[in-house]
Structures are given as structure tokens and as C-alpha cells.
């Protein structure tokens, strides 16, 4: 059986035991990419030579008895929103087609310092704006579970790569659910760490007060290993917290024992069947969710209902704060210093070139958000829009604070529906935004969240994830509860089902 079906922890153990080399592991993943990525399109760039060279170095180190880290030699994929020297960083946009950064993001440097070979850059919604990866300027990524369906967004590429066994580990980023929601629709694990606990230096900013880098994996333990590696204070990021990242792996291992006695779990009233009717919480999703909650009870958790009344305003606040911040963040793309330059005919001024370039280089969703953001910040409207949204944020933080006085973790479905078809919601921005209903509150408050695969929907057989949320800096609780649920539900998705869906018969494997 190919190494690619092992978890990252298992691959790391095998490397340590000398059962496999990093070159073999890396090559196996490159082979899988060659086999399936034409269908899945998870990757925008594959660095075959670089990854193999890094793998060879890993093997040398290990032979000399000097591995850099437990994960030294385990391959990883990186969402194309993080800067990588020598590899293009396009953010899924024409604006940065072929742009090769002269510096590494801090999280990328940490991967390199630990010796993980970087397989390549994964596809994403343009500048991380979207919930389906359909906004990528380079074509959508397809959900390995059903190639006609979306893999989620904005980090659909990383989730699909991990789901399709093209990589055991990937980095994603989450601003309103862009790691967790793809995790939910692809049957993988996705974590948004506490805001500030992972460096944003080198993360091309969407909404600075909401963005976080996080792990994308197939198991909870793998995510814990990856988050411990990339997390921690970075002096280059002024918003990075001092507290060290600790105890996540321990919590994941402890959680796997399945004992949740004494853990208080709160089901969020507003996110689910009792919530807003119009948000369309599908029965398929709710069925899996209810089962998962029951499972938690069986493991000894005390489950109660908790109301977070301000959450109904979270979407509105989010879709004001994010456009405001991004309208300013994306101003730097002006054709003067890097990236696309479109020169109109005649004797154009710098201003003409800026305007033509930004019209050609940005897709529709990006333009929508820039314009809304420009409006929300303009004089006369600031207080009513951005100012108000920041107040809603305060109310949401208060809701979380009150909730966590009653419970240790909160739980909800990760998103209202399973993976919808490609093209189904592409022309309806509001319908698309509703995918983030459950995930947005965590970004507004900075609290950590995880999506754990909990089963498949009864009606369409597609993956469903369950979201846990914990107080700020209590990421370990997510790993404990997440690992417990994961162990309890077992292999609900099944590797062989996926191979079949990808058309990988015994001959092709």
C-alpha cells in the first residue's frame, strides 16, 4: 500500500524508523499529483525538482542522525497566498501571475527550518475571497469526493490536495472559514488557530484583523503537529501573541482515548435548525451533526444549549470589516513595483495604467469587495458602516465570553450545506456568503476553531464536518475534543470510496 495513504504522523514515524526515505515519500506524492491533479486541480505550481532536492537533504540529515524536527522529510503543500522564495505566489489572481517573492513568509521559513519538502502551491479563491475556489483566476479546484462539486474556499486547493492524498499536510489561511469550510466539504481536518498565535508575516493580507494561517490535514493529530511547528511569536508580526504554542499534540493524543468526562459542550442555538430559516441548514448536515453531538454525550461530555444572540449580525459585520480592510490592502497592486502592468494605448499616465491594470487583474468578487470597502470607509459613512461593524464585533466577543463561562467548548455544524455544484452559486454573492455563517463569528472574536469530519450526509453521501470553538489561546481544547470525536466516528469516509470517485482503479494505483 502506498505511503500516501498514511497520516503525516505515521509517515514521520516511518522516516524515523528507517522504513522509508523522504525521497520515496516525496516521489510518491508527486506521482499521486501526476495521477489525479489534472482532474482535481489542487495545485497551481508543483516544484518537483525543489521538493526532491529538499527530500534528499532530509535523508542526508537523518542518515547523519540530525533530523531537524519530528516532521523533517514529510512533504507539505502551501496555499498560494503565502510568500515563498523561488516559487510563484499568485494568490489565485492574474494580478500576480508569475510573481516570485524575494522573501519567505515566516510560516514557510519554519517549514523549511524543520526540513519539510514543499511540494508546491495550492489553488485558492482570488486573494482569499470566496467559499468555493471558483473565484480563482486559474480555474476552479474540484472536490475529490465529486469532481462536479466545489472543494470549498478560499482554501479549496489545500483541502483537496490533502483529501486526494496528494499531500499529507498543507497550510491554509482562514479569514471567515477558508480553512474550516473546505475541511467540512472535503472530509478533512482544518484548524483556525487563535488570532495572533501564528505569524501573518508573508501572508498576503485579506483582512488583517481576521486572517490566520492554519493546518489542513486528514487527522486531528497531524494538525496538532503542524500547528505546533508553525505557531508561536514572531517579532516581525506586531499582532503576534507572546504565549508559546504548547500542548496541542498532547491534547490530541489524550483526546484519542475517547474520554470526555467533565467536558462541557455548548450547542450554539443560532447556528443550526433553530437558527435562521433562510440560511438553509440542510437536513443532511443536521443529521450528521445531531449524531456527532450524541456521540459526544456517549463519551461523557455534558452537552447543553447556549445562545449567542449577536451571531445573527456576524455576517453583516464581517462583510463590512473585511471589504474595508481589503480595499486598503489591495491598493498596493498598482502596476508600479511588481505584478501585472497593462498599458492602454496612447500616452497613458501612471493613473491610467493603474486603472487599466486593476480592471484587468482583479476578478469580479475582488472588485465587489474593494468597492464596498471603499464605500464603507468613506467620510460620512464610516460610523454607520465600519464603526458599527466594529461594535458588533464587541457584542460577539461578549457572547463568546458569556458562553465560555458556561461551557468549555462550543459546537456547531461547520457550514449549512454539503458541497454544492460548481457554478450553482457563482453568480449569487449573497448565497455564496451564507456558506460562512457558522465560521465567521470565530474570526471576528479571534477564538480558535476546528472542523472535524463527522460522517457523510444521508441524502447525498457527501462529507460533513463538525466545528468546535474554544476560548482565545485554548486551542488545546479543540484538539482534545476533536480527537475524541474523530476516534469515535472512525473512518466514516473511507479511502476506497475516494479512489473510486477519482477513477483510480486497482490498475491505475
Amino acid at each position, binding site marked *: 500500500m502506498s505511503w500516501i495513504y498514511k497520516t503525516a504522523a505515521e509517515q514521520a514515524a516511518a522516516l524515523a524508523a528507517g522504513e522509508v526515505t523522504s525521497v520515496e515519500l516525496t516521489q510518491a506524492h508527486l506521482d499521486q499529483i501526476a495521477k489525479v491533479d489534472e482532474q482535481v486541480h489542487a495545485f497551481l505550481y508543483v516544484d518537483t525538482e525543489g521538493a526532491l532536492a529538499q527530500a534528499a537533504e532530509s535523508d542526508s540529515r537523518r542518515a547523519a542522525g540530525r533530523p531537524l524536527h519530528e516532521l523533517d522529510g514529510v512533504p507539505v503543500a502551501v496555499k498560494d497566498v503565502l510568500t515563498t522564495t523561488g516559487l510563484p505566489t499568485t494568490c489565485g489572481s492574474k494580478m500576480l501571475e508569475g510573481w516570485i517573492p524575494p522573501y519567505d513568509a515566516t510560516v514557510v521559513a519554519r517549514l523549511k527550518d524543520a526540513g519539510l519538502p514543499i511540494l508546491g502551491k495550492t489553488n485558492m479563491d482570488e486573494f482569499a475571497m470566496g467559499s468555493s475556489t471558483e473565484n480563482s483566476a486559474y480555474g476552479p479546484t474540484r472536490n475529490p469526493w465529486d469532481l462536479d462539486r466545489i472543494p470549498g474556499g478560499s482554501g479549496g486547493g489545500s483541502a483537496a490536495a490533502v483529501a486526494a492524498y496528494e499531500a499529507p499536510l498543507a497550510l491554509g489561511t482562514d479569514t471567515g472559514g477558508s480553512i474550516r469550510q473546505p475541511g467540512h466539504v472535503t472530509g478533512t481536518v482544518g484548524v483556525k488557530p487563535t488570532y495572533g498565535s501564528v505569524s501573518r508575516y508573508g501572508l498576503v493580507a485579506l483582512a488583517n484583523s481576521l486572517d490566520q494561517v492554519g493546518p489542513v490535514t486528514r487527522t486531528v493529530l497531524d494538525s496538532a503537529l503542524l500547528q505546533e511547528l508553525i505557531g508561536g511569536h514572531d517579532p516581525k508580526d506586531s499582532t503576534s501573541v507572546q504565549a508559546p504554542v504548547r500542548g496541542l499534540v498532547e491534547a490530541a493524543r489524550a483526546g484519542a482515548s475517547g474520554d470526555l468526562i467533565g467536558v462541557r459542550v455548548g450547542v450554539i442555538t443560532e447556528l443550526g435548525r433553530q437558527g435562521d430559516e433562510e440560511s438553509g441548514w440542510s437536513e443532511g448536515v443536521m443529521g450528521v451533526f445531531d449524531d456527532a453531538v450524541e456521540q459526544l454525550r456517549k463519551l461523557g461530555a455534558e452537552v447543553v444549549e447556549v445562545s449567542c444572540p449577536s451571531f445573527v449580525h456576524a455576517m453583516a459585520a464581517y462583510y463590512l470589516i473585511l471589504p474595508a480592510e481589503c480595499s486598503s490592502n489591495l*491598493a498596493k497592486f498598482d502596476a508600479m513595483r511588481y505584478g501585472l*502592468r497593462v498599458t492602454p494605448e496612447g500616452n497613458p499616465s501612471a493613473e491610467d495604467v493603474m486603472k487599466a491594470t486593476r480592471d484587468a487583474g482583479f476578478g469580479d468578487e475582488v472588485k*465587489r469587495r474593494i468597492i464596498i470597502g471603499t464605500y464603507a470607509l*468613506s467620510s460620512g459613512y464610516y460610523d454607520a458602516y465600519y464603526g458599527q461593524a466594529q461594535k458588533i464585533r464587541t457584542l460577539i466577543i461578549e457572547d463568546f465570553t458569556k458562553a465560555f463561562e458556561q461551557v468549555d467548548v462550543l459546537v456547531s455544524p461547520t457550514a449549512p450545506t454539503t458541497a454544492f455544484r460548481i457554478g450553482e452559486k457563482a453568480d449569487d454573492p449573497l448565497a455564496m456568503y451564507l456558506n460562512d455563517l457558522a465560521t465567521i463569528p470565530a474570526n471576528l472574536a479571534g*477564538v480558535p476553531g476546528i472542523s472535524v469530519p463527522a460522517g457523510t450526509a444521508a441524502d447525498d453521501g457527501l462529507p460533513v464536518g463538525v466545528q468546535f470553538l474554544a476560548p482565545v489561546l485554548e486551542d488545546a481544547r479543540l484538539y482534545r475534543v476533536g480527537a475524541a470525536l474523530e476516534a469515535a466516528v472512525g473512518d466514516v469516509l473511507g479511502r476506497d470510496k475516494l479512489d473510486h470517485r477519482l477513477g483510480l482503479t486497482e490498475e491505475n494505483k
Partner: protein
Amino acid sequence: MPELSRGLSRDQVRHLADLARIDLSDAELDHLAPQLNVILESVASIQGVAGDDVVPTSHPIPMTNVFRDDVVVPGLTAEQALSGAPAVEEQRFSVPRILGDEQ
């Protein structure tokens, strides 16, 4: 207090696009303006939700006074700095004629 749900006229959208230095075609304006108004209508729901006594939060994690020492740290070489530039002349970024004055 401006009426939030009134929506944007096509001209207002063009003006905003100008401020954001995006040259929208007429077709784009026709396409975007209604979509923007649908979004703005839905976010208008926050009006009046939070009272005057609610303090806005700009940062989820309260921190203050993050400083660095006034010590030189190696940066980029000129080659690295100019590596992505659409046009370079005399080791500087070459840009088309600038219309506006410096601020």
C-alpha cells in the same frame, strides 16, 4: 445619519471605482451595481444594533506597545527589490508620467 439601504447609483459606483483606481467598463458597471446593492441592503441590518455605549473592537486580542529596537536589520538587495518590477531604469522603478501632485 445616511440612509444605508438606499443603495448606490451607477454614478456612485463609478466614483468609488475611481477612488479605488479601477477602470470599470459600462458592462461591468451594469453588472456590479445591482449586486453591490443587494449586499449593501443585507449589511444594512446592523444599523442601530449596537448602542452608543458599546466600544468598537479593532483587535480581537488586546495588546499594546509592541516596539522594535532602533537597530539596522539587513534588507533586500536592489536586485531583489527590483526583481518583480515591470520596468527598471537606473536601478529605479520606472513608472509612466504621473499626473497628480505629491501630497
